[in-house]
């Protein structure tokens, strides 16, 4: 795009002539960026480094300053028993941790899949022209606008075993034979969390997909119409491929969000090992169990896992972000 025309030309034939204008702009750019970079370094970079550092120490909440370096002990250590058997300890050998990893990944995968499909349906509906479209768009923005904590509490009231309206509705419609303690039962806790999360975040997905849909030129469909292509085939052959970039970006945003889920589960199903995610477990260890360094190891692992999955997804999906140098 033409935005770059003001820029000094790239390095191949480095210009000998550095004009006042370009110097002034370069200097201004530097001055403008420094405060932001310092802010990000202080608030993100340094804490990240410290968190990783703590995971290699024996720090405890009451004794952060006196933390001693212990190497990989929080991740894995082993003792050989007299009997000769080797006993492994540490995060990598902690079944509760792997349970949390599994819960997180399962949650992220299922919720994002549902959101992608439902979001696509909602986006297609909103992309059609019909009376009351504005109303529908306003309606789907409501779940998005409601704070997560509030939706967690709203839904836990609706899912209440004794007085919840969903049990009542289920019984009236004959879908349930008895009242279910949705959030308290291990079997249904994850379902409850998924339902609330999908309810809350499908609108975001739908809006991102809708923006992609609206960039597809209308005449493509008109041409397909004239050629007599069946609407369902139109979807697979035209809509889906063309909206794919938008969809991939929407999915990655949501995936990153889902992998770090904390507040919904903290409020909706506290203390349920069926839904305990990496974030919930890490915070528990950091601040509730006084295992600060162990919690740091978890948050470090969480960071690594998310980074790994993201790189994998971007690489496999060939996602392209708008921005950066063309």
């Amino acid at each position, binding site marked *: 795009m033409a935005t770059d025309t003001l820029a000094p030309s790239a390095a191949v034939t480095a210009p000998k002539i550095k004009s006042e204008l370009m110097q002034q702009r370069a200097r201004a750019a530097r001055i403008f960026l420094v405060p*932001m970079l310092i802010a990000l370094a202080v608030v993100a970079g340094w804490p990240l480094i410290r968190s990783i550092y703590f995971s290699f120490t024996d720090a405890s909440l009451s004794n952060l300053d006196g933390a001693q370096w212990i190497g990989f002990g929080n991740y894995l250590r082993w003792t050989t028993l007299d009997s000769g058997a080797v006993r492994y300890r540490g995060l990598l050998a902690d079944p509760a941790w792997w349970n949390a990893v599994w819960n997180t990944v399962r949650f992220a995968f299922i919720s994002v899949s549902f959101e992608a499909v439902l979001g696509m349906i909602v986006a297609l509906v909103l992309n059609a022209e*019909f009376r009351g479209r504005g109303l529908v768009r306003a309606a789907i923005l*409501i779940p998005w606008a409601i704070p997560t904590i509030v939706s967690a509490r709203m839904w836990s009231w609706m899912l209440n075993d004794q007085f919840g309206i969903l049990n009542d509705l289920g019984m009236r419609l004959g879908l349930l034979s008895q009242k279910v303690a949705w959030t308290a039962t291990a079997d249904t806790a994850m379902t409850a969390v998924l339902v609330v999360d999908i309810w809350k975040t499908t609108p975001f997905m739908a809006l991102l997909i809708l923006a*992609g849909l609206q960039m597809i030129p209308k005449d493509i469909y008109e041409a397909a119409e004239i050629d007599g292509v069946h609407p369902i085939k139109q979807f697979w052959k035209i809509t889906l491929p063309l909206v794919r970039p938008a969809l991939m970006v929407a999915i990655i945003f949501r995936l990153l969000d889902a992998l770090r889920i904390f507040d919904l589960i903290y409020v909706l199903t506290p203390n349920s090992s069926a839904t305990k995610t990496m974030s919930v477990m890490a915070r528990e260890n950091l601040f509730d169990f006084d295992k600060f360094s162990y919690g740091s190891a978890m948050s470090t692992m969480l960071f690594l896992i998310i980074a790994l999955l993201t790189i994998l997804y971007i690489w496999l999906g060939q996602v392209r972000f708008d921005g950066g140098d063309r």
Partner: protein
Amino acid sequence: MGATFDLWKLTKWTLFYLLVAVIVVVSVFPFYYAILTSFKSGTDLFRINYWPDSFSLNNYYNVLNSGSFPRNLLNSVFVSAVTVLLALFLAVTASFALSRVRFRGRGLLLLTILGVSMFPQMAVLAGLFELIRFLGIYNTPWALIFSYTIFTLPFTVWVLTTFMRELPVEIEEAAIVDGATPWVIITRVFLPLMWPALVTTGLLAFIGAWNEFLFALTFTSNNDTRTVPVAIALLSGNTQYEIPWGNIMAASVIVTVPLVVLVLIFQRKIVSGLTAGGVKG
């Protein structure tokens, strides 16, 4: 022939509107039910109704007059507003540099900023906790303003960069010929053109700060310093089995209504702001 065609068309439209109805009802019902519940008191709470049949402001009275909820509201407003202003101030100048000046490593920098905005906050929690205690701002609103910068700043920078990239080059060049420095271009030419973008970005950042839970839970420790999400999450009765659902719903409605109203007023702008993050291209 004609009759079957019409029938098919009719079914299609019926099914379509059915789908629309389902989408609307599912989206709105939980909030509707929360409002419904918030107006019930006493034993009415435990009778399940689908339509409003009793009306009492008791819960609102309780929430606003007892405990620290009004204080929590003030905290939330203060923290969110200051966070947004700070982020916008830093982001406007930074996004000028990122969208209008080419320099080596700009693409990498943009990607890093995007990366930070999608960063799991848990990964920095331990380090932030140490830093906040070191700075002596633990259990004050400043701890939250400080820590919220981690997600509001990259987000505002990213969105404003996208917006600023769309401003016509020739206007900027005309200003350069007129003798405007980058600072003058930003303040006297771009800012007046960008206020819709600023409102959108600011609003989205505000919502993000208003809804934040993890940092607020961790960096504040008593009722008077908490923000509303934490207050609502921790609202409980005398015993574990006596959850004050009426109060919770009233508090939820109080917290949510302003947001919903804002979002509905600015819905077009919000949609464009949300999608500015990367769908194009």
